[in-house]
């Protein structure tokens, strides 16, 4: 599971109002190289929850992203791609292979096996 995906997942157990973002318990993290595509990153930038991404990246052992969300103009400008490259690495190249995603409100753990999160709710949670 990449962090791009994690940035969208939330816990929808009945009654939970604060199911996002899911905390990460990392047991196995791998890096998979992905072609750098600045246009795609710029296209997606507005949709990313920056602070959540920074924290999630730290859970996977990557602390290079700046704390505060960069200005859209910085991302748009073609000049300095170093920030974009860090975003690229955090969002697309770090993979949680084994571990769990944890609901911030209930503590319920959603297992991640072979890189695939299992978000199915139990009968009493729906």
């Amino acid at each position, binding site marked *: *599971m*990449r962090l*791009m*995906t994690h940035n*969208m*997942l*939330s*816990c*929808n157990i009945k009654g939970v109002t604060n*199911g*996002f973002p899911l905390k990460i318990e990392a047991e196995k993290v791998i890096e*998979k190289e*992905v*072609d750098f*595509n600045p*246009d*795609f990153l710029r*296209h*997606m930038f*507005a*949709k990313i929850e920056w602070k959540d991404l920074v924290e999630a990246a730290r859970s996977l052992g990557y602390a290079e992203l700046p704390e505060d969300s960069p200005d859209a103009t910085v991302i748009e400008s073609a000049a300095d791609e170093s920030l974009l490259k860090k975003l690229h690495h955090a969002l*697309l190249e770090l993979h949680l292979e084994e571990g769990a995603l944890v609901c911030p409100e209930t503590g319920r753990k*959603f297992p991640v096996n*072979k*890189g*695939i*999160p*299992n*978000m*199915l*709710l139990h*009968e009493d949670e*729906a």
Partner: protein
Amino acid sequence: MKATLAPSSLISLPRHKVSSLRSPSLLLQSQRPSSALMTTTTASRGSVAVTAAATSSFEALREGIAEFYNETSGLWEEIWGDHMHHGFYDPDSSVQLSDSGHREAQIRMIEESLRFAGVTEEEKKIKRVVDVGCGIGGSSRYIASKFGAECIGITLSPVQAKRANDLAAAQSLSHKVSFQVADALEQPFEDGIFDLVWSMESGEHMPDKAKFVKELVRVAAPGGRIIIVTWCHRNLSPGEEALQPWEQNLLDRICKTFYLPAWCSTSDYVDLLQSLSLQDIKCADWSENVAPFWPAVIRTALTWKGLVSLLRSGMKSIKGALTMPLMIEGYKKGVIKFGIITCQKPL
């Protein structure tokens, strides 16, 4: 038959009372009680009570669907490729198509669906897509490539999710598409995050159509489009409360092997979307455009390769294959309809 409509026109179908939306026919009722999978609810007309027995049947159905696709996905992919849906054909086309002709028809189904929903004119706005009931990700990968958008797919089958991710990696699309195991009735997403909500032939598996549609609407972004392409039964005539017993019996036999709960009609979906204040609701009956599909599937099953693969794949696959003629019968007799329903969430 032309399958396109004028934009923003609402097809007026034979309408049954809105109260039938809340009838048990949209839940698990109408299944033969002897099936372990489907228990008859006793919810009275006008209520949406889902009994405890029905809830655990949902679990059983969910497991059944997951196991069915765990077992049969590999077989399907081997013979038909990565799109697990009907092809779109010109009506009355009598030419027997090659394998590649059918693959093209499956791609055409995606394109026709997007076109019907009016999506193709809005390419730049599509950044995030959800594929509800994604199979092994054929639609997701296609749509992500087409729009340069991010696509996330959900399926009940871990085997499908893994295969979908592997195919994405093989096609260098891992940065754009990802797949997880999740329930369409409990989508693990925040409200309003998807510019396009895509459900290609998965609606027929949903035991609670109202909840299914509510979830599709919930995760759609304001201004986002929802596309549902699904197997339905024919619309009921005014005053008609239910299908004829012989029609129901035909569907029951299909439900058992394909792990389907009770069917609903295209106009049931339209009613649901209207009740949720969606706009630009459109629907069409594409039954004539998919007519060559099941005969083609049966032909491939009867080839030497098909038969050997079926035997290797297991009982669920074999039973599924034996059920295919019933689908043809259902279409021919006007019981089964291939429906598309699309709409837009208000800004």
